[in-house]
């Protein structure tokens, strides 16, 4: 293993960490602005022009706030839980190609930390480990709201892992590879070759499951403010709470990348135009997370379980079976 490869990998990791930490901050700003506009409000306006420096103000607040460890919590677990959420979110990014490869001064850069042959399996697996953030944090908090939230997050994440897995199975059968780059290259023929056209059901199922995986609004009962305060985050303060937040927003960005690459052609043939298209697709999916938050109500936990096991899972299984039959003949 040569030195250049190690340096390149470290640089890529640092760049991804910095960009997506910053994007998580900008994500909160966009979320507040978009929600405000949809509710005929203005959103943050006072810190900087159009409230743009609100991110900096929030960051300063989170960093300088006292990090309170309540008396009866299980201290080591309570302290490590936010790190699990943030770390697994960023670890999942290792197998995601963010940009087609390009050449700088004769050196070809692959903007993916590790093009492993089990890419999507790795991404989903690491995102699934992210469950331990809310679960352990909620159970260690010595707070009944956190405990309810922990139980809910365990139920939701594990249930919807099934949906993500089964819905992805059908496209993966068509592509024949788990690497996200191979999946992307399968669709290079333009908009007609996108997997969404041949696997619309899988696309919808994965999209629905993405809301559960990231804990966004229709399925936001992990931290539903009006029933369980902030759920697993109730007892957290300062930067530990901030890590939960960064993890959630980073997850939103990464799952948007995953949907765009698997179903909507990714960066296409690898030109700059294709790369910009990828960014636009990701932006749309991120915007959709905010859009639904303004428009849709939350569902109850039992409704969510019902939806998962009695509706989505049978449809996903049927989809896999039908895809198999079609491929066989």
């Amino acid at each position: 293993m040569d030195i250049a490869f190690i340096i390149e990998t470290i640089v890529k990791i640092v760049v991804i960490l910095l960009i997506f930490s910053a994007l998580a901050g900008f994500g909160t700003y966009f979320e507040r602005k978009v929600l405000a506009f949809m509710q005929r409000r203005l959103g943050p306006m006072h810190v900087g022009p159009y409230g743009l420096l609100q991110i900096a103000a929030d960051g300063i607040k989170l960093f300088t706030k006292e990090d309170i460890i309540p008396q009866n919590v299980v201290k080591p677990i309570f302290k490590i839980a936010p790190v699990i959420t943030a770390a697994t979110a960023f670890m999942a990014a290792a197998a995601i190609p963010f940009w087609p490869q390009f050449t700088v001064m004769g050196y070809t850069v692959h903007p993916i930390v590790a093009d492993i042959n089990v890419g999507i399996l790795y991404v989903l697996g690491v995102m699934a480990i992210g469950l331990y953030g809310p679960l352990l944090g909620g159970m260690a908090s010595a707070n009944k709201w956190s405990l309810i939230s922990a139980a809910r997050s365990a139920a939701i994440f594990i249930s919807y892992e099934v949906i993500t897995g089964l819905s992805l199975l059908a496209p993966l059968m068509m592509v024949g590879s788990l690497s996200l780059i191979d999946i992307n290259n399968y669709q290079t023929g333009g908009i007609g070759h996108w997997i969404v056209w041949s696997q619309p059901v899988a696309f919808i199922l994965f999209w629905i499951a993405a809301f559960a995986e990231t804990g966004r609004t229709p399925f936001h009962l992990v931290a539903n403010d009006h029933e369980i305060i902030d759920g697993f985050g109730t007892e957290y303060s300062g930067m530990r709470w901030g890590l939960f937040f960064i993890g959630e927003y980073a997850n939103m960005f990464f799952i948007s990348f995953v949907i765009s690459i698997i179903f909507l052609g990714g960066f296409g043939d690898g030109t700059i135009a294709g790369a910009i298209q990828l960014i636009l697709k990701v932006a749309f999916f991120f915007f959709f997370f905010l859009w639904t938050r303004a428009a849709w109500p939350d569902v109850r936990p039992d409704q969510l379980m019902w939806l998962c096991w009695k509706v989505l899972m049978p449809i996903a299984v049927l989809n896999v079976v039908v895809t198999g039959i079609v491929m066989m003949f």
Partner: protein
Amino acid sequence: MHHEETFTDRNVSEQSAYYYVDIESYPTTGWDKFKQVVKRTFSGELFVGLWVVMREMIKFDIHTVQYPLEKLPIGPRYRAVHKLLRLWESGYERCIGCGLCEKICISDCIRMDTKIDENSRKEVTEYSINLGRCIFCGYCAEVCPELAIVHGDRYENGSEQRAHFVIKDDMLTPLDMLKAGQQSEYPGFGAIIPGSDAAVKKTPLAY
């Protein structure tokens, strides 16, 4: 950002009477529940919600009032911290020291001292309102025969001391403001009814 908003008439009348919403009975059997779910899933209600919020975002009809920079107009009958006014021509204080406000004040928070000055005019030397007791009922403004004490529009009364608003010098219109024409007649409590000039009749000489 002053603008008058016209409100729709939402009063219930014969034409727009209440009506009962048609609520279907809840499904009991599994098949009925399934049919309800299918109906709700494909009726597109979720997309109506998405469209509504998107429409509002595109219309960008923002109703936020950025408060310290923009203020909503308050109604003329709003009763904020009191003001003492001056006569327009001479600049004298309108208050004639009659003491009616002191007398009528039901929370007993107005206190005034008077003396006869060198022009044989009754002069108010001290005038204070204890805002800790004032209930802003408006009786003082209503009873004042000279339109001297009125309720102003100064509702931003955050201060270190309540007394800051009710020292006589603070309530009284300063002379330079009066000369600049900045004293505003208050249309609210105790003000002259519009058209009252026409209602005044000459006292018959026969009296």
